[in-house]
């Protein structure tokens, strides 16, 4: 009985933490999204329940389509490039050569920089008038590109910046994954006369699969909610061309003098839902792997 009590007592901090920091905010966000809040009722209470009105407003808004497509493109392209470049770099550093530790540490810089610094730096580099990138393009005889101010390029520009920021994370996790692959497997494959490419494709890649899965899942969650980079570089513009669900939710709730909390919360919940689905998929594939 007593040890039971102690057990519960140990559980209490965790439960309290989850309740205060996860359950309550989540509940509030759902509540916000099903009520018709005005600024007055936000302060004085008494916002009426409106069911799914806010969701209907959000889904029927032409911005929703743009934001959803942009979010999918931004996330998938970012993930693919971050993972492949990160893996390539991890394989490169795994060979262990002089200065490899120093170089690897330097690779972490993008991750260590505050986002406001890296996003502003990218915005300067990609500036149409005075940016370094356009100066280089001009130097090699190409036409300058309006990276941040053309609706055709703004999403590309923020995606490039996001890939750059995400590479170190992939590098670090995949590098430590590579360290955990037993040496003997490589020795065996070398004895069998496998080429470098065959070794990678039939030994390294399959053995790295669990680490790859968690890297990609974490990357997915991080990328879905990316807000700062886009907001600092383009504010989701020009005219909505780099708006994702995350920036749109912010814009609805805080980007205007007249906050629209209901629709903003609804967009936020859609994002959460996408992340949860991805998490469930991960758990399912992991279970299948364990069974196999």
């Amino acid at each position, binding site marked *: 009985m*007593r*040890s039971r*009590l*102690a057990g519960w*007592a*140990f559980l*209490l*901090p965790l439960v*309290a*933490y989850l309740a*205060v*920091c996860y359950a309550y905010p989540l509940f509030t966000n759902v509540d916000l999204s099903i009520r018709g809040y*005005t*600024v*007055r009722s*936000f*302060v*004085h209470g008494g916002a009426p329940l409106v069911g799914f009105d806010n969701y209907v407003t959000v889904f029927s808004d032409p911005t929703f389509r743009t934001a959803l497509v942009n979010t999918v493109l931004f996330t998938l392209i970012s993930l693919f490039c971050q993972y492949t470049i990160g893996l390539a770099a991890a394989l490169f550093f795994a060979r262990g050569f002089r200065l490899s530790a120093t170089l690897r540490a330097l690779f972490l810089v993008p991750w260590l920089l505050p986002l406001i610094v890296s996003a502003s730096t990218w*915005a300067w580099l990609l*500036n*149409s*008038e*005075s940016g370094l990138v356009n100066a280089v393009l001009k130097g090699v005889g190409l036409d300058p590109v*309006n990276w*941040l*101010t*053309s*609706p055709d390029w703004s999403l590309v520009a923020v995606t490039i910046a996001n890939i750059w920021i995400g590479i170190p994370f992939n590098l670090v996790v995949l590098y430590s994954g590579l360290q955990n692959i037993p040496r003997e497997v490589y020795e065996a494959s070398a004895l069998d006369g496998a080429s470098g490419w065959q070794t990678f494709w039939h030994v390294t890649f399959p053995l790295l699969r669990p680490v790859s899965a968690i890297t990609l899942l974490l990357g997915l969650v991080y990328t879905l909610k990316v807000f700062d980079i886009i907001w600092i570089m*383009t*504010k*989701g*513009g*020009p*005219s*909505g*061309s780099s708006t994702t669900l995350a920036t749109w939710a912010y814009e609805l*709730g*805080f*980007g*205007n*003098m*007249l*906050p629209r909390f209901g629709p903003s919360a609804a967009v936020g919940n859609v994002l959460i839902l996408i992340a949860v689905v991805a998490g469930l998929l991960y758990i399912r594939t992991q279970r299948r792997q364990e069974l196999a």
Partner: protein
Amino acid sequence: MFPASVPTRLLAALGLVVSVTACSSTPATTSDAFSVWDPYPQFTAESEWAKTIDKCGTEAGVKIQRQAYDTTDLTSKVLLAAQQGTAPHVLVLDNPVVSTLAEAGVLKPNQDVGLDASQVSPNLAAAGVVNGQTYGTPIGANTLALYYNKAVLAAAGVDPASIKDWDSLTAALAKVKASGKKGITFSAIGTEEGTFQFLPWFWGAGASLTDLPSGKAALELWKSWLDNGYAPNSVVGNTQTTSWQEFATGEYAFTENGTWQLGNAKKAGFEYGVIPIPGRTGGTAPAPTGGEFVTVPAQSDKDAETKAGRVATCLTAPDKVLASDTALTYISAVPSVQQQQVSAQPELAVWVEAVKNAKGRTGDDLGTKYPKISQPLWGAVQAALTGAKTPEAALRDAQASAK
């Protein structure tokens, strides 16, 4: 296993719970502290502004705690505080937000708290008028005009005095471009700043915010500047700060910018001048007013509201406001103080003139309708400048979503 230590563990666990909950709740402001919130984080506790606040607190018999927020954060911070019943006693607030917070019931009308805005120019007080009641008093005002680089204009053979309307301005830009320099830079970013910068041209075309397509000529003017290379493509993403930085390179003939850049203009390292933004066919275009209002949020305690009214009155009193406006490089909202400013700094005359012609964004009885118009408008400006839509179609679509 170690029954003796169970109480200790319990205590430790409880301690954790307490500390977790303690961390998650925001510290409540103590009830005896009198709070003033402002959007001037650039002013430290040693600044003239902070000293003025302390002085006004002493005069009203209260000890003031000042809290400075970034202006974009302030609205949501105040809304949350008002929801929790911890709104500040005195709130210094960007003028277009006043009507929104007044309608939310966060602010007290002036007559209830003994605040008086009758000394300030009516065009400046207008942003605080909601349903016939005035909320708060402007601490000062800023607005937009055209800064020009004297050397660039001289090299291009342009006399700034010849710029009287849009045609003469565009002709000047053509001459500047022909001389190898850049024409004009401004901010057309997809935020309130973009609308703020567009409004002088929009109103200068005789357009009204309730009929966005009537401002077609203004949007066509901006678009033609971009198409002809008189304005850089970067304006689409420029904030007013980044467009100022472009001007500060010395490459540009003009920038549309605000009173608050006067301090930076003196540090730019080249001779500059200022002309009012011309209307389409001449005269001075009405520019939007910027600047903050000193307001009194509603409290459960009537006595605190009265004291807050006294502090607010003191902060906007003609003898105090001169120092604050000088520090902010604002033009005073009180005509007599404006005269003092001009006699101390003659170069402010053009800005006083611009402020006299300026118009509140939430005026014309727009109030809380303004944000719903402003957002589609900046979207239309961006859509037209990037070529996604024609100016006419962009404004027509904006009008449709402004309802």
